[in-house]
């Protein structure tokens, strides 16, 4: 029978069998490919991909180790239900109960339950080599961010960034710290972190968008390539378009700015951010009458906005309507005084 099969086909079949044997007998066994792929996905912070890969493996070969990995990946990806499901299965398969409880504590911390924050920080500092410590610190940082406690978030991210980590993790932590700095009005440090995040992960759209929100006004020449990258990669939402219009205005290209903002105004005719920028662009084009319409609508939607009020004062001044401009300047002073009062008010303890 074998002799009736042409020799080349027999040889090919044998070779295939040998190859399959080599592949199956490599260290780690048949499940190792998925596990490694999942770990690689985690290193890339592709948590959904990691969970999917592990679930493929679990359907064929359910192990406690894979369940724990899946629980951790699901938790880091923000899928708490899946995380708990995998963790419960992990325990059923004989997984260590303390490890499961630790993972649950990390999840609570990630979701803003910061009761054990001090202990976590100390544990991480005392055990710099433990991988768990990194997971705990990352969850704690996210917890502080969720709880709007930027100072503690920055301190935790400082500790995280001092540890060994994948480039993707480092990029993400830099992005988070950059966002925290932005919220703390520490723009220089924010920009430095966001730039560093993009250097580590060129495709980090979130970092690019956060950066252009700062740079389209401050460093428009630097902002423009980021905006072009976002556009080329399909990020064409209103936030990106608004920054693009602002960037063009700050580059002195008011015609391009006007073209971008016209579409945005048509799409979002009551958005005070869009209307304020539209007013600023018309003022830059020397068209205060056109600016007034946009600014009036913006102020109707958001009456106490400093920038819009300031632009309206300029607009009225340029239109030669001095008394109205003065009135608007008086409003601006009131807003300033209010901001000063809030800034200088005694702070309550968090």
């Amino acid at each position: 029978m074998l002799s009736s099969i042409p020799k080349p086909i027999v040889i090919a079949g044998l070779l295939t069998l040998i190859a399959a044997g080599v592949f199956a007998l490599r260290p780690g066994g048949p499940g190792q490919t998925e596990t490694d792929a999942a770990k690689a996905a985690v290193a890339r912070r592709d948590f959904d991909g990691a969970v999917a890969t592990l679930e493929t493996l679990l359907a064929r070969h359910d192990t406690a180790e894979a369940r724990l990995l899946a629980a951790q990946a699901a938790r880091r990806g923000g899928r708490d239900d899946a995380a708990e499901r995998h963790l419960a299965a992990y325990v059923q398969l004989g997984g260590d109960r303390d490890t499961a409880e630790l993972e649950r504590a990390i999840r609570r911390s990630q979701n803003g339950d910061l009761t054990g924050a001090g202990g976590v920080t100390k544990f991480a500092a005392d055990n710099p080599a433990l991988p768990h410590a990194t997971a705990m610190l990352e969850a704690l940082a996210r917890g502080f961010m969720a709880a709007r406690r930027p100072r503690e978030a920055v301190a935790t991210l400082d500790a995280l960034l001092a540890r060994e980590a994948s480039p993707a993790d480092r990029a993400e932590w830099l992005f988070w710290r950059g966002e925290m700095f932005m919220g703390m009005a520490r723009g220089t440090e924010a920009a430095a972190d966001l730039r560093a995040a993009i250097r580590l992960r060129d495709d980090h759209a979130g970092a690019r968008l956060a950066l252009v929100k700062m740079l389209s006004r401050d460093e428009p020449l630097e902002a423009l390539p980021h905006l072009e990258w976002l556009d080329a990669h399909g990020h064409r939402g209103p936030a990106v378009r608004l920054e693009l219009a602002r960037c063009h205005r700050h580059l002195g290209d008011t015609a391009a700015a006007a073209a971008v903002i016209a579409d945005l105004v048509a799409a979002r005719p009551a958005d005070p951010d869009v209307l304020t920028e539209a007013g600023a662009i018309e003022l830059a084009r020397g068209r205060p009458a056109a600016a007034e319409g946009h600014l009036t609508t913006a102020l109707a939607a958001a009456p106490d906005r400093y920038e819009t009020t300031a632009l309206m004062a300029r607009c009225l001044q340029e239109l030669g309507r001095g008394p109205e401009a003065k009135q608007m300047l008086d409003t601006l002073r009131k807003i300033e005084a209010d901001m000063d009062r809030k800034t200088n008010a005694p702070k309550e303890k968090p």
Partner: protein
Amino acid sequence: MKRFPLAAGAVALALAAGGVWYATRPKPAPVVEQPPPAETPTGPAVFEDVTAGSGVAAVYRNGEEADRFTILESLGGGVAVLDYDGDGRLDLFFPGGGSMAGDPPQIRGLPGKLFRNLGDWKFEDVTAKAGLGGPLFYTHGAAAADYDRDGFPDLLVTGWGRTVLYRNVPDGAGGRRFTDVSAKAGLTDARWPTSAAWGDLDGDGFPDLYVCHYVDWTFANDPACPGAARDVARDVCPPQKFQPLRHRLYRNRADGTFEDVTAKAPLRPDGKGLGVVVADLNADGRPDIYVANDAGENFLYYNRGDLKFEERGRADGAALDDIGLYNGSMGVDVADFDGSGRPAVWVANFQGEVHALYRNIGAAGFRHDSQAAGVARLGRQFVGFGTAFVDYDNDGWEDLAVTNGHVLRFPAGAPLKQRPVLLRNEEHGGRRQFREVPGLGGLYFRGQYGGRGLAVADLDDDGRPDLVVTHQNEPAVLLRNVAETGHRWLGISLAGRDKRDVAGATVTLEVSGRKLTRFARGGGSYLSTSDPRLRFGLGAADKVGRLTVRWPHGKEEVFEGLQPGAYWRVGEGTGKAE
């Protein structure tokens, strides 16, 4: 032989399996280095550093070596350009700064230096001979003007705790020297004056005096401030830590003395003043005053006559930035950059802010126009100080020069030493815009410095404006304009009737269908005084039309028959240009 294909195939497939394994291993994300954005360098160099061999050796010392981190050391010093000996060549005076030593600390002054221009880019140190060896105090600024109308420029030197007025007098040997007349003149202010501007504000022909004051810092009011970066324990305090000192306005009584008219004017009580310029900003014939304040809104004082002023900075759109915030402002200048015939105001600002170009839109005041004019392309890393409009290529459009350098010892997000900036006035999209042309300025503009003072002066009278720049603790530089544009030029030296002060004059030259407008100014830039002559770049035009001068507090006068390629002395009431 038949075994060979089998073995080879097995090896090949093993390699392929290894390849699968290799391809699925965890991989680090690629690190992508992005070069900083920059505009394309083009064109030959315009300025050549000719300091070496010129005989000019002036280093402003700020005393930072004492490590006291005082705000005093952040200001630096300027330069004054003046023809002190009346030989027709522009000389240079540099304040020397000072030091801090001892416990309790003492502020000590260092002598300034006066360099006489010998021609051909050679200068002679005549400080002692000219009587400028003292008094010693910690100096900043130098403002030159002929306050006594004797035809020779006098010199006001400002610094911490003192203002000194040096009168230019004959030295008894056919030359000139300076003598300290501060006490006699009544200029005995012992606070912290910075930039000053001269100008005949009341129309009597004698230049009056506006003196900016900074803040109430003393060693008794010297808080310790943390640095801008998280890991810097101490740095120079920001001006917000101190109270402003009221600026001063002095009326020149025409008898060698001055009357403090600050309250009568009235000047505002606030403002941490660092820059001031006097020019006719609203075309009413009277010189007005614009003041650049640090950490506060800028002042626009319209001259209402009889030494009364109305401050309308906010109301007329010249006090704040594009979104209504005040800036940290230092240097200032005015010019018609857009061919409107009206003076725009230009202000050099702090890091995190854009330098402000307030376009003059006539009766409605000013428009913050930095974005539309392309200035915002520069970004916000600069801390700008000395600055001036300068048509360096004589194309008839006013360009800009700015010297930069940080005030902090350990700044965050911007370097301590910064490159100076040369901005070319170009047409883009039907409007005038300023564009940096890296490399164009020459080697000096590629370096980084603690830049402070800047003066524009045609030191070799070739019609191409040169620059003099001072730095913190580094030698001042002379930048010779070597631009080979082939463009023609025409220079004007305004001579008021009976040596009246001319700051506030507006001069318009008709050239090839265009009207070029220049403004005679008092003060300007930062702690500095520039060449008082006005220059018109003519581009390719080889002849000019009539020149119209609107004298301060006076009439319009037309002059004809001027030829390019020379400086012309234009005398008020003579109708003649010589």
